[in-house]
């Protein structure tokens, strides 16, 4: 298999020029995530309204191309969506990484779909799945207000 299936242009781009990499203004939730074995660290900031819409989302942190790209892509996709929809996207995203299944969410545009799919190459690299999911788990923790740092080492 070609390593380029993992490091697609779109991922390299997000890895090098991550979107929403800052502390977004007016955030009302946040959480930290940590992968102690590789040192990846993510801090997710969230502005979520009463109706549970994700008004704004951003992140800070450091890590490999996969984890940064995944965080960047996540913020792009989740921003403006309802929390429930976001949760469904995460669920399907995890299935994609674990079982290789396709995404099937109406509320994703073709473009969004394609962007998400660019991470599907991770499936063949089991040791990197944790990198790809760290931001997402941290997002859920932020939204649900759990205090404990997400720790992918379990």
């Amino acid at each position, binding site marked *: 298999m070609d390593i380029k299936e993992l490091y697609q242009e779109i991922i390299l781009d997000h890895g090098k020029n991550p979107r929403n990499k800052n502390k977004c203004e007016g955030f009302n939730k946040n959480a930290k995530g*940590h992968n*102690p*074995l*590789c040192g990846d660290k993510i801090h997710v900031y969230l502005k979520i309204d009463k109706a549970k819409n994700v008004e704004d989302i951003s992140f800070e942190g450091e890590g490999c191309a996969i984890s940064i790209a995944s965080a960047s892509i996540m913020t792009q996709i989740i921003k403006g969506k309802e929390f429930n929809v976001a949760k469904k996207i995460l669920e399907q995203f995890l299935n994609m990484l674990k079982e290789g299944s396709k995404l099937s969410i109406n509320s994703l545009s073709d473009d969004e779909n394609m962007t998400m799919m660019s991470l599907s190459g991770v499936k063949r690299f*089991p*040791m*990197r799945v944790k990198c790809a999911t760290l931001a997402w788990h941290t997002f859920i923790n932020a939204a649900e207000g759990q205090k404990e*740092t997400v*720790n992918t*080492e*379990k």
Partner: protein
Amino acid sequence: MDTKVIKSKFPIFKNKINGKQLTYLDNANSSQKPQSVIDRISKFYSNEFSNIGRSVHSLGVTATNRFEETRDLIKNFINAKSREEIIFTKNATEAINLVAFTYGEKFINKGDEILITELEHHANYVPWHFIRKRKGAIIKFAECNEKGEVDIDKIKELISNKTKMIAITHLSNVTGAIMPVKKIVDLASEKKIPVLIDGCQGAPHLKIDMQELGCDFYAISCHKMYGPTGVGILYAKKKWLDVLPPYQGGGGMIEDVKKNNITFPRSPTKYEAGTLQTAEVVGFSESIKFIKDVGIKNIMSHEKEILEYGLEKIKKNNSVKIIGDPKNRGSIISFTIKGIHPHDIATILDEDGVAIRAGHHCCQILHEKLGIPASARASFGIYNSKEDIDVLSDSIKKCNKVFNT
């Protein structure tokens, strides 16, 4: 159960001992290993080896998967609630030390009581002794009766509002007594006292189910379960692992390391410091498969049959005194012969290829209670047959002859 078929799976039995077929009756000490376990270790080192957890490369991934799959296998085998409750240790002794130290550090204070029994192996006494020393705690010994059992009433009597831990064997490695562990756990949970079970002799010979049993800690010794040396298992309820401090410190068990402080991850990582026994754990997965293939129920009924045949046969020899007569007995027969020291018995038996153990079997308290410094012990496993008992019985007669008793 066809012990011939089973024996054929253990290469050790192809060897001659002093020119004789090996009659291995030292299973309570350690068990022999089937070819599948030996081969799995070789294969692992030959094709899959690397350090686990820490590496991104393919060998590291494979090794980590094989290792963690074994954790799942064990979780299912003992019906733990979650894989986080399975911690790999060096041996059962370390498993008990881990609990005694971490629980003792946090929850045992001056004047608190630790309740154990007179049947305990040193592995389930010495670690508590250390806590007694460090914390000024008290160890109470539930008395063993003349049948070699500990009555639950003796435990009940000793429980006080100072009791902070009940630590008991599942199956005595001397008298073979099977303790009423479920009842003890129920009794203890009423009073919110945690229970540790030394399952060294339980796990290889009895069906064990952590969720049904409900104990807080259960210690297992893999080498007594037809598995490799160098691995033990601590089962611990997650609620404990969440609150107890770490045990040994080192690589792998940390979260964030700064010069002035260190934070730790959750179980099992928190309790597994340094490079683990990768090959041994992976090898052990084949032991579990082996036991499951034979079937723990078949093992139990087979060993019961051998035990009963053995008891009957050996009782016929009037010079032999069997230690204990528990109602509920595992496949262990400890005995003495009038006028012959157990060491001499073991030596004479060994000449016939019969491997038994002589000594106090790491149970000095019990032997003192019995008024003997040592005993001889025959303990049976999956591969033992009635013929093995016959050989044992004949060899015991030879002891009488050599010593003219």
